[in-house]
């Protein structure tokens, strides 16, 4: 009588089974193994060789308005493995398609304006649907200070975000500077998926 393996229930003949029945049992087993291997390969295709990740950047000057700052607009897509960036839709955002946990990091070069000692905050934000404004959840963004009125100064932020509900407005990089005439001369913004997250 045909028996079955413990976990995957693959069929196999036992000693008293008719030899002429072997091809049928064999093909049933092979079909089940094929289906399991295919399922694994589909899962592996989500993580190998690439995961969802995108990096956008700008290298031209951008004035930072007072007093609430602004989302940085970007000009170039360094890479995008999962159609997360569409500058026609929004030059401010990386919009994840896959649910899960994302590591998001931003880095900017700022040239000061008229005065030193001004507060600076670089934050990663998610906004509400239909808006490119600030709001939603923010991450990173430790308080810092624009110490000098001139010269390059560098700020960075990073945090992990949970994306649990599609669609999402995505991630943006918000810079607040309390300094007249400050400009961003360079900015990089990256998001990459680090894991799935099962819902509670």
């Amino acid at each position: 009588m045909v028996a079955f393996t413990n976990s995957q229930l693959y069929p196999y003949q036992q000693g008293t089974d008719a030899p002429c029945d072997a091809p049928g049992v064999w093909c049933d087993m092979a079909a089940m193994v094929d289906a399991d291997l295919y399922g694994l390969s589909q899962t592996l295709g989500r993580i190998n060789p690439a995961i969802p990740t995108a990096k956008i950047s700008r290298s031209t000057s951008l004035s930072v308005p007072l007093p609430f700052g602004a989302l940085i607009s970007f000009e170039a897509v360094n890479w995008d493995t999962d159609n997360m960036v569409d500058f026609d839709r929004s030059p401010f955002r990386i919009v994840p398609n896959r649910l899960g946990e994302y590591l998001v990091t931003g880095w900017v070069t700022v040239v000061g304006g008229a005065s030193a000692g001004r507060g600076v905050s670089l934050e990663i934000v998610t906004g509400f649907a239909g808006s490119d404004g600030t709001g939603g959840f923010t991450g990173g963004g430790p308080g810092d200070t624009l110490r000098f009125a001139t010269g390059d100064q560098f700020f960075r932020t990073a945090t992990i975000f949970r994306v649990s509900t599609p669609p999402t407005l995505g991630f943006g990089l918000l810079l607040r500077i309390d300094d007249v005439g400050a400009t961003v001369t360079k900015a990089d913004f990256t998001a990459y998926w680090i894991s799935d997250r099962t819902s509670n």
Partner: protein
Amino acid sequence: MEFTEHFGLACPSPTDYAALPLYMQRLAEQIEDAVIEQQAQISAFQRPPTSIWKNDTNLGPISNTGFLQLTFGPAQRVFANYGGASQSLGPFTGTFPSAGLYHLGWATNAREVGAVNADTFRQMRFWVQKQTAGGLVDVMTAHRVVYATAAGFGEYFGADNTVLIDDEFSQYIVRMEFTHGNTSSQVQLTINETFVWLTRIGSSDAIEVA
């Protein structure tokens, strides 16, 4: 003989049972090849190439008119899950083990050896550059500058950024240079307080399965 839909696993036709041992061998080898390939993919995801270096000596000290160029060799590597020639990090080629997307970062504590001048800068410049026919080209920067307090415990700071390393991965270098503005005394990067790390995020190819 018949074959399964996805992996072409062989199974005998009803009249083939005399050749079962041969078909069994073929099936076993096909399954083994598929499983080995999947194991390799799992391993590549579970263990992305990652290295961490730490300074095992004081770096510096230097005056406010000098600069400190950092290099890390195999002896300073405190963690690595890959071997080969890519065991050093500095203004020389060979750091990256393969093409792909990488996340790099650093952290340090700049300590004054004497008096502290409050509000003077401590700056680390961090570049990934590629050697080309036209010279070195910046492909990523993760500079950071902070300003000293008068407390004298040093200044902890760091930065990170991501970079695409293309197929010419052996032509990339990582450059780190520290400078400061403390005029009253020299500043050093004290032993065991400077870390540099890199980890491979993955390929820049479009993902295959949503």
